[in-house]
């Protein structure tokens, strides 16, 4: 790579502008091995990945007009886990390093500042890191397949590209949605509660198929049902109820076939308006499936990309000094960014690893943080026979978790729960 810095991609721009203690601007991917992790070897593995993943080993710097990502002079120091995952990355930390490589007992975890990449890119990094670690520790030779990258190769230009402008169709899609219900609770300062629901992937799939939908749609519908019940209890008067929508990130690589390791996802907000009447789970499933099918098409997603990319192409906006730009972005984001949904349900799908790696890895997980007006968030990943549903919250009450997981149990999906906050 000729120059040692790069622009932020289109989706990444917002994260440095919005710094908020309620918003953990970080997500985590983790792999749990069969044996305790050796920190020294993990450090070596992290160093060995540096030339292959230039877009991950960066720190956030400030220019006059934009933030940019600068290559790290040395690989980050691996460290032991914190008492709770997804600790906010403060400005000071971002200036030195935007990635955390963490170990705890058998677990390797990587936390990314969200400007670097999204869950899909993060998992590719984690798989390659784990493969390298297994090679150093056990001499395992993991072939470069199933998302493990070849360390002897040079990074491909398309892995480092910002794919958003390439797939924009230039016509901004205008969708104004009314504000959705906002979940509330007693704020827990300086702590994120994590509840992991471990679910047999087969039973979950069978339950989804009973309703004729995919696992993502099924979980989204169960979440919507739980939130609808939550609202019904609090707001008996139907006319005053708010729309319940679930923010579902769509991996655009699947739609456009991009190979980028940077952010390339957009969110949709399927949901229902409870003022119109009650919905049962079957209806929720079909409504949400229909909404997602109608929106997650290459054509309409290109319009959504355009809505985000177009302002960035106006030279007058580009010329605005960064502090002013950040201020305005913050204003707009606070007004319209996050009020359209109640909670994220982010399904990374099935994480596959090369066969040579499988005997060493027990589980792989994906955890997203809370957001400004989302006190709860939910991320899902399937590894092997289990689906790991990670629900995180910055409030005290586990009410939504209780409703969601016990509803799954009712639907014949057995759930085992683990938490970090007993």
């Amino acid at each position, binding site marked *: 790579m000729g120059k040692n810095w790069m622009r932020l991609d289109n989706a990444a721009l917002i994260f440095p502008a919005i710094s908020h203690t309620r918003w953990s601007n970080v997500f985590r991917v983790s792999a749990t091995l069969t044996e305790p992790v050796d920190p020294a070897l993990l450090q070596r593995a992290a160093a060995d990945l540096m030339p292959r993943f230039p877009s991950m080993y960066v720190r956030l710097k400030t220019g006059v007009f934009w933030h940019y990502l600068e290559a790290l002079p040395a690989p980050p120091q691996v460290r*032991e*886990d*914190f*008492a*709770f*995952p997804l*600790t906010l990355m*403060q400005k000071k930390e971002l200036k030195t390093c935007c990635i955390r490589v963490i170990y*705890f*007992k058998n677990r390797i975890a990587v936390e990314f500042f969200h400007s670097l990449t999204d869950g899909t890119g993060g998992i590719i990094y984690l798989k390659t890191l784990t493969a390298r670690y297994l090679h150093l520790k056990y001499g395992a030779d993991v072939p470069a397949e199933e998302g493990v990258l070849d360390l002897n190769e040079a990074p491909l230009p398309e892995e480092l590209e910002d794919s958003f402008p390439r797939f924009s169709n230039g016509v901004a899609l205008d969708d104004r949605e009314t504000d959705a219900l906002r979940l509330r609770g007693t704020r827990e300062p*300086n*702590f994120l509660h*994590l*509840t*992991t*629901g471990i679910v047999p992937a087969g039973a979950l799939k069978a339950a989804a198929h009973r309703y004729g939908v995919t696992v993502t749609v099924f979980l989204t519908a169960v979440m919507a049902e739980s939130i609808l019940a939550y609202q019904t209890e609090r707001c008996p008067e139907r006319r005053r109820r708010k729309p319940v929508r679930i923010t579902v990130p769509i991996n655009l690589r699947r739609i456009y076939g991009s190979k980028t390791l940077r952010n390339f996802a957009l969110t949709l907000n399927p949901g229902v308006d409870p003022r119109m009447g009650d919905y049962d789970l079957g209806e929720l499933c079909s409504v949400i499936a229909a909404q997602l099918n109608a929106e997650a098409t290459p054509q309409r997603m290109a319009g959504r990309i355009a809505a985000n990319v177009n*302002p960035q192409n106006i030279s007058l*906006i580009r010329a605005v000094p960064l502090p002013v730009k950040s201020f*305005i*972005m913050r204003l*707009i984001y606070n007004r319209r960014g996050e009020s359209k949904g109640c909670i994220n349900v982010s399904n990374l799908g099935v994480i596959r690893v090369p066969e040579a790696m499988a005997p060493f890895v027990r589980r792989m997980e994906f955890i997203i943080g809370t957001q400004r007006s989302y006190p709860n968030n939910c991320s899902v990943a399937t590894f092997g026979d289990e689906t790991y549903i990670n629900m995180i919250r910055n409030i005290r009450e*586990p009410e939504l*978790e*209780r409703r969601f*997981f*016990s509803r799954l*149990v*009712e639907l014949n999906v*057995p*759930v*085992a*729960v*683990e*938490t*970090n*906050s*007993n």
Partner: protein
Amino acid sequence: MYCVKCGVRLTDGAAACPLCRTPVRDPDGAEAAPAAPTYPERYPAPPKTRRYPILAFLTALLLAVSLSAMIYCLTNLHAVSWSGYVMLACALVYFALLFPFWFEKREPLIFVPIGFGLTCGYLLYICLYTGGSWFLSFAFPVTMLAGLLTTASVLLFRFGKRRRLLKIGVLLTVIGLSNMLIEFFLCITFDTRMFAWSLYPVCSFSLVGLVLILCCTIPGWRAYLEKKLFL
């Protein structure tokens, strides 16, 4: 072990269900060894606050300034003289700007009125010391007005974050109008001409304020502006 209420499987040795807080009654008794925690036990140290050393330094600085002024006046002029102003000014700066920061939670509704009260006292001291007669008819009402406005805006913005633009509009209008009051007090204290300058701030502030109020109250305007001005 399963939770009897919500039916989820719990980690071994859990004392209660993490979802519904139902205590676990394990028929096997306490034989089941607790499972290893999935995250480290230690609670993260709260972020270090570096403001205490700075606060202590600034307090000492203010103390040193006021003490040296007093000592200078007492030894050279054999009277309190102007060191009274310096000392009271230091006290004012301390209580208005530094004192609240010693507290973890700064309650503006307490500290803002205290600050203005102290300012009032300071002005009274100057007025009495110089033998002026401007305190009751000018300094006192103007400080009280400023204090009232500041407290009102704190109240407005602390409770309820909705309709900020409307609140800003109302506040700007009130601030504009209060200029006229200030000029009135100036006028009766120092015999200046009424309406010499106050009309300019009144007009400009109220105009901006009224536009903001209109933008917030007339839905069409707001939608239009949002459509035209969004980035």
